[in-house]
């Protein structure tokens, strides 16, 4: 807005409400959690104020490192799978005429309104042994006996890709819809087949956006709880499940807090990278 005015006392007061709410109900809890990571754990599921680094040293234990690495690994693969499917899909979407374009977009975005627990449950049925894909294949005579594909790594991967998919499209769509159609047409008049055009022109131009989408999905799936909890065995649990588990069932809040700190730093770093890419893209325009 041009010509912004200097704030009056009243406007400061108005601002005080949201800032106050955020300070009390977001910053304070966050800081309390930071503090809790240094507290001492007592048996019975409680903790008392203190200062010790026991929770942080536990971070270097094999169990946490293993969980963390697995979390990162599965998120990376899910992000790659998601972007690989979403990018060409979104590209074609932006080239469609208005009607199918809008219909498909609404369909994909509707998936955003699905709860993670629903997605987890649905995929557990699809990949299960009772009423899923393998049952259809048995019914069609292509398979001997029904097999369960969940819980398992592939199941978690599919679930994560599913919930991340609409967000991935949300990130890719604005830039892809702004892609100058004539640039692809120019490549074609120079002898490039549609596939070659896609490979040597569209993808290179879109590279920053693809990167941003990848990172965003990565962060998003890192924070997922239910998919891993429903579709994965304990060895497939992500960090979020581990943290939540420690905080509730194992009642080790200090350790959970310490892990949450690590996750915070990691997430903020990744989000920072995405913002950097987006600002570079905007500056280039």
């Amino acid at each position, binding site marked *: 807005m041009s010509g912004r005015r200097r704030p009056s006392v009243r406007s400061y007061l108005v601002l005080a409400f*949201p800032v106050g709410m955020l300070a009390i109900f977001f910053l304070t809890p966050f800081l309390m959690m930071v503090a809790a990571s240094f507290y001492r754990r007592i048996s019975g599921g409680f903790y008392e104020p203190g200062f010790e680094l026991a929770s942080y040293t536990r971070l270097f234990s094999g169990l946490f490192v293993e969980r963390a690495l697995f979390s990162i690994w599965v998120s990376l693969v899910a992000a790659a799978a998601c972007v690989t499917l979403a990018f060409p899909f979104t590209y*074609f979407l932006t080239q469609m005429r208005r009607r199918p374009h809008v219909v498909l977009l*609404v369909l994909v*975005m509707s998936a955003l309104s699905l709860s993670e627990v629903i997605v987890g449950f649905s995929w557990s049925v699809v990949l299960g042994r009772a009423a*899923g894909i393998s*049952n259809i294949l048995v019914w069609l005579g292509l398979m001997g006996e029904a097999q369960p594909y969940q819980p398992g790594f592939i199941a978690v991967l599919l679930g994560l890709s599913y919930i991340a998919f609409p967000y991935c499209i949300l990130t890719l769509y604005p830039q892809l819809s702004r892609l100058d159609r004539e640039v692809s047409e120019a490549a074609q008049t120079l002898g490039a087949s*549609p596939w070659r055009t896609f490979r040597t022109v569209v993808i290179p131009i879109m590279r920053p956006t693809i990167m941003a989408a990848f990172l965003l999905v990565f962060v998003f799936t890192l924070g997922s709880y239910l998919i891993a909890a429903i579709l994965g065995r304990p060895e497939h649990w992500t960090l979020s499940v581990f*943290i939540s588990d420690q905080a*509730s069932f194992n009642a080790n809040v200090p350790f959970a807090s310490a892990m949450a700190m690590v996750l915070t730093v990691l997430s903020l770093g990744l989000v920072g990278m995405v913002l950097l890419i987006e600002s570079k893209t905007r500056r280039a325009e």
Partner: protein
Amino acid sequence: MRALRVVLAVLVVMFLVAPLLVVAIVSINPSRYMDFPPGGFSLHWYGQIWADTGWRSAIERSLIIATAGAALAVAIALPMAYVLRAYRVRLTPLLYGLGILPFMLPPVISALGAQVFWNGVNHIGRIENVIVAHGIFFSTLPLITISLAMDTLDPALPEAAQTMGANPRKTFRTVTFPLLVPSMITGYAAAFVLSLNEYIIAFLVAGFSVETLPIKIFNSLRYGFTPTIAAVTVVFIGLATSVFSLFALFGNLLRFLGADPAVLERQR
């Protein structure tokens, strides 16, 4: 090339719809066990949702939390978006970052923080905890939608009102606020749907005493399958997608997603 385009679109649609379709089929199966092919057609399990007080109260609780939580989210976002966009406030990037931060972090972090907080003030296991936690966590959405609306607001409009004698408060009430209502509704709808769907914050904050719908579904999954879960799922999907459709109808969905209007016009 055209064939590839169609194949990809079909694949994606199948990928998105398949799980939901399967659950819908399971929900109308009269048999108590999950089997395929389904034995018949029955709406018995849908009736169970109503009959079973556990499910009914879980749905009620979720709706209450979503209604109140989304309202709180908008109540937080509106003054912030307005003041930060209408006035030159020092520390604007910082304050705006504070507003965005809850949503940028993995939810388990906010959930754990909230748990520590409410335990610390000894206000445990109450529904208000969840409402407040959701209100804060989802305030980012209306913050973004209202800020965007403020950005596209023609600055000449409030100025014109003022030249006609309206003081700042009246200007806001009669000119700015009505123009912001669509973005408020969009933000509300988004926060509502997400609150309805949310698990981990609700669980860590008051999960053992306030059983929301997602919590109940998840718990039920652990205890073994009943087709009622499938029926609930279908109802849940219907509820959420209706709200979303209203949201899509109300606002120009494509513009909201960032499409360039000029490009849209070209594609007849």
